[in-house]
């Protein structure tokens, strides 16, 4: 029996070890290439040990893109985004976990349904919103206020069930009419224009609609003992006080996991920042790096320096905080 287990273990390691080395090879070579001149990268045999050209490559990268500035932009964007997103998603997650309110079921299903909708379905209107004409944004805001007002009025009137159903139909028809005719007309009427392109807000604002984060925070707030919150309420604490003083501290580890994942996702995002950041001084590191890859007259050693500098901090963090990264990744994945 023991002998058979030994052989099983042997085959397991024989299978896994070469595969693991193969998996690490691109990361190791990325690091090695960042320390060699381009001529060495393309020579045979390929260098497998670090050289001493890192500083030279960094200088050429800095000359090509002002890379340190783009790193600063990346830190700002990912940092502001993470803080705001944690704030918004925990407020919303808490509301879904803790309160019963009118429209809760519909709104929550709507938020969760967007998890299966491809991002491309929204990317063009998002771009129009932040980049082209802020008229659209204002037209929608006015519309939201008007229709939100009607909805609140209907809720306040506490209509009878039959009338209620009719009201929903009417509300839907009116909403659709507003989308087709109202928005374009309002767009025409509103004349001023504030463009968000090449600002941090252009990158941050749309990504704040993060339904996975809301779902994750809701699950965590559900697991907080309700009796504890009720006790605080009986003691006369306000709802926001209960939220900040009791609920939030109890879910802090989960929040940390979410924060790590949000920061990483924002840090590594490429398509959206590429669309809204054209000014080189405002670009994030991945966008600046991506703009170099297509060109022929740049140093590949420099590009590898950029790849290392955007990756290495997270690899080191991953070594120490693996548990939190994994908690964040499995958050959406595993049902309880």
């Amino acid at each position, binding site marked *: 029996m023991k002998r058979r287990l030994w052989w099983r273990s042997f085959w397991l390691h024989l299978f896994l070890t070469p595969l693991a080395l193969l998996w690490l090879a691109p990361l190791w070579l990325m690091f090695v290439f960042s320390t060699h001149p381009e001529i060495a990268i393309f020579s045979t045999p390929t260098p497998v040990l670090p050289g001493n050209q890192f500083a030279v490559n960094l200088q050429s990268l800095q000359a090509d893109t002002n890379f340190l500035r783009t790193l600063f932009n990346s830190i700002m964007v990912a940092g502001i985004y993470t803080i705001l997103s944690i704030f918004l*998603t925990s407020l919303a997650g808490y509301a879904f976990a803790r*309160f019963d309110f009118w429209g809760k079921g519909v709104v929550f299903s709507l938020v969760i349904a967007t998890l299966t909708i491809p991002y491309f379905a929204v990317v063009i209107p998002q771009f129009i*919103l932040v980049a082209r004409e802020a008229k659209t944004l204002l037209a929608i805001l006015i519309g939201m206020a008007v229709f939100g007002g009607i909805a609140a009025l209907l809720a306040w009137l506490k209509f009878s069930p039959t009338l209620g159903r009719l009201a929903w139909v009417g509300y839907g028809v009116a909403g659709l009419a507003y989308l087709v005719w109202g928005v374009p007309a309002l767009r025409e009427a509103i004349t001023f224009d504030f463009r968000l392109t090449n600002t941090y807000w252009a990158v941050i604002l749309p990504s*704040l609609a993060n339904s996975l984060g809301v779902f994750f925070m809701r699950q965590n707030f559900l697991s907080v003992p309700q009796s504890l919150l009720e006790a605080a309420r009986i003691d006369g604490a306000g709802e926001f006080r209960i*939220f900040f003083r009791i609920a939030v501290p109890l879910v802090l580890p989960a929040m940390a996991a979410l924060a790590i994942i949000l920061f990483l996702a924002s840090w590594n995002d490429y398509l959206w920042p590429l669309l809204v950041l054209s000014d080189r001084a405002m670009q994030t590191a991945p966008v600046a790096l991506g703009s170099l890859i297509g060109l022929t007259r740049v140093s590949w050693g420099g590009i590898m320096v950029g790849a290392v500098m955007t990756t290495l901090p997270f690899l080191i963090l991953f070594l120490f905080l693996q548990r939190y*990264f994994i908690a964040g990744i499995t958050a959406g*994945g*595993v049902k309880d």
Partner: protein
Amino acid sequence: MKRSATPYLFLSPYLAIFALFWAWPILESLLLSFQNTRVSPPVWNLSVNWGRILGDAAFWDALRNTVLILVIQVPLMLALATVLAVALNSQLLRARGFFRFAFFAPVVVGAVAYSAVFRLLFNQNGAVNAALGTQLNWIFDPVGAMAVIIITLTWRWTGYNAIIILAGLQSIPKDIYEAAEIDGASPWQQFWRITVPSLRPVLLFCLVLSIIGTLQLFTEPWLITNGGPGTATTTLGVYLYRQGFQNINFGYASTIAYAITLLALVFSIIQLRLFGRES
């Protein structure tokens, strides 16, 4: 619970953003796909984009490439991820920390960074050819370029899926295996009779995520092969970017976006039919 305005206060900051940047754009995309945006101001024309997409050879090329990646890369990756998760979960494994790091590390690497590395590795004078002793021009060969994309995606996402599957594995009760062991089931039988059926919901979840991810593949083909050679690795995502943001035709790009959304919907329905309503 007492009815009050408090829940709306908690909810409204998020909902305002959600309504503005998700709910509204989903509708606006649909509306845009029925507009001719090549004239200024755009005019309603119900058939201009949807009529065009049906006869657009470049779109069907992109669709074919995307589906090709879908049917080759996704099953390959999920099978490998399952095997890896089982191996990493094994009691017999030594140096677990090393193996976990090796397979999970790509999870933190950004698409731009690893796209640059893989483009360099598969260069004609690059490390892969040097290691294999070949002179293949990967990036400029239609089959080779597709292979590079598939290899890159597999490297990046296998560990990610393995993490989710591993979490699923750890929720399977241990006593089922002990009972099977006593009944004389081999590891192989245990894997197929216990592990795989228990993992079905988790694998289904990974499958859904991978399909949605593949349908909107953009960064890797854009940076590694630029969709080429020719249109050999032009995915739906790359085609949408070209139409929308290089040719500045938001109407047609919205039509492509909605075609992608419809595809995602079709795949979801097929999955629900095949696997039942367990997710």
